[in-house]
């Protein structure tokens, strides 16, 4: 340990750099692309089913698609499947609406042991809370602006 301080710092930095995970941005993007695209295709399948088999139209059709996708997202989260895919696909699983369902179900399940109010009830909204807050506030602003500029 008689090395000069800056020399030791340099060796330390090199070791850290060698052990750091290589940033695999391109690989992650390819996987996000395929899994995200696939989830959207599943959404389209559900939509086509609602349109042809259930004769739904307009807003009902969109709501039906959304509800089924959210159900699938919550179910696969409960079964532990969704988080396994998420580890592989990153934003490919968190950006679709199924990821929104996952972001509510996973923490609610995780923290239910801390009670039904401050555990499950609060944690359910740890990510959905900000999304709904800014989403709803933003929609009201756009609605009011459309009154002025229409």
């Amino acid at each position, binding site marked *: 340990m008689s090395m000069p301080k800056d020399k030791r710092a340099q060796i330390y930095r090199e070791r850290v750099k060698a052990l750091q995970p290589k*940033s695999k941005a391109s690989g992650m993007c390819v996987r996000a692309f*395929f899994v995200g695209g696939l989830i959207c295709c599943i959404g389209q399948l559900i939509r086509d089913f609602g349109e042809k088999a259930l004769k739904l139209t307009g807003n009902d059709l969109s709501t039906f698609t959304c509800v089924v996708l959210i159900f699938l997202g919550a179910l696969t*989260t409960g079964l532990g499947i969704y988080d396994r895919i998420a580890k592989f696909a990153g934003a490919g699983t968190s950006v679709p609406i199924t990821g*929104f369902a996952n972001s509510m179900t996973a923490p609610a*399940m*995780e923290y*239910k042991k801390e009670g039904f109010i401050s555990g499950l009830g609060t944690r359910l909204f740890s*990510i959905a809370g900000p999304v709904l807050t800014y989403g709803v506030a933003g929609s009201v602003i756009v609605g009011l602006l459309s009154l002025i500029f229409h």
Partner: protein
Amino acid sequence: MKYVIVFLVGGAICVIGQLLICYTRMTTARILVAFVLAGIVLTALGVYEPLIGFANAGASVPLTGFGYTLAKGAIDGARQNGVLGAITGGLEASSGGVAAAIFFAVSGALAFSPKTKK
């Protein structure tokens, strides 16, 4: 052909999210908020509706599509009911999704327990 466009557009929107995660180290909560807000702004500018017409579920399934539902509901509500419609329209249009998300998340959390992490 329709499914190819759905796949390409849906995948591309997810790649934008992945690039934000990789290069700005934004957290998931920030990404999701940013996507919903982006959907709202693009809808207000009249850009997102044509994209939905072009890509169907490729544009409506990503969270920007949730922003689209909120903004379009508020704009339609404002057109029909003025100020009250502007306030109620967004949640009215997205109420099915929001209620389903809460209901299925609570059901899922009660029915299942977290799998042990390896």
